[in-house]
């Protein structure tokens, strides 16, 4: 699976939060497993063309929530504690994604009933659950 991350300039969410969310999602869905190393702050900042402080804040936020652990010389790695609690991580992921989507839609003027109707349509269109 892809380890792609993107900063959407149209998204009102701050870049560090967009990045934090995507990394947390990758951990929550098991794509990034315990012990996996993340790129250095400088490398990821250069690749994304953002300030190093943006990536540094992302990693700080992730470390504060226990998703990663940073050690000088050893880099930033995914901790075992979060990656081994997929249920909890999945619930947190659902909350995060929907909360961010609602913020963006409300900012664009969408009404709550429009958002609910669209969510129902999306759920009806979802692929079959794996058996």
């Amino acid at each position: 699976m892809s380890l792609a991350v993107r900063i959407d300039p149209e998204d009102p969410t701050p870049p560090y939060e967009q990045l934090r969310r995507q990394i947390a999602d990758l951990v929550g869905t098991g794509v990034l497993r315990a012990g996996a190393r993340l790129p250095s702050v400088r490398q990821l900042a250069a690749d994304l063309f953002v300030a190093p402080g943006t990536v540094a804040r992302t990693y700080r936020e992730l470390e504060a929530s226990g998703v990663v652990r940073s050690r000088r010389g050893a880099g930033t790695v995914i901790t075992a504690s979060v990656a081994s609690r997929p249920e909890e991580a999945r619930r947190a992921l659902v909350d995060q994604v929907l909360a961010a989507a609602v913020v963006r839609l409300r900012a664009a003027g969408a009404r709550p009933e429009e958002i609910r109707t669209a969510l129902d349509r999306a759920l009806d269109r979802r692929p079959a659950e794996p058996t």
Partner: protein
Amino acid sequence: MILMALPLLMILRPALLLALLVLLGGGVLVAVLPRRRGAMAADERQYPGLAALRRTTVTCRTVAVAVGIAAVSAVVAAGGLGVGAALAPATFAVVQVVGVLVADVLTRESARRPGSASLEVRQVRDYLPRGLTRVVGVLAAVLLGALAWTAAVAGPDDLGRAGRALAYTCAQGCDAGAHTPWPGSFYAVPMALGLVLLLGLGALAVRGTVRRPRDGSDEQLVRVDDAVRRRSVESVVAAVGIALSAGLLGIGLAAGAPVLADAHVPGSLRAGAGMLVVSGLAATPVLVWCVLVLLFPVATATPGRQADTVRLGAPA
């Protein structure tokens, strides 16, 4: 056995040495050249940045070779008493490494798409050519040991210039003598400084190449870009290899061979000189290998590695 045969070799030296060097060099040419095929490809219309990366890298490499040759000529002409010649290999190599550095600076944006990346971890060891790096590492140790010994046994020449001659005394039947030029401190110190500069620049160039930003979320781009990075890193390692192997060859031929062929020189010194000659001969195929790698820059083909087998250019 090689050491026993070497004195005879030294007596017949010009023709036999030349034949041996041609044989060693030719063997490497035959073994390595067919593998240096064109590789790496992308649809350049879809990836204009990669097209620019290819053009700039090739241009910088070509200019570096030309400038390197010119720099060597200038250094040899400027350096008196053979110091220029001693510094020539490192000079050429430094220019090649600077060429890689310049190419990296000019192509910094070629593979990057702002706002898009991958959580990949790029490390130097992922791009180093393993075999060549190991051989170059061995060469560095051998050259360091050789220069340490030659500096330790050296003395002043007839005009009092320290570290420029190998003086000896005979046990009986001859006068004391000296061989010059000899790579004592007079030559060894500038050579060592040149190599330290080269290694420092080389480390900088390799690090810069590996850290050059890119959009790692695009698999096709990563494939091609990785091949370019490997070529650049390989060129740096090859340049260092040229400096080290040419240095060993020069010491072996210019200093070791005359001492080995002189029966008046005490046995211990002749043995050391013999080791210099053997090291120089052994370094010859490595020199040819590194020159080929530099002049025919293709990522070292690894069986089954798809990235190395793609062809660069517009699709048919």
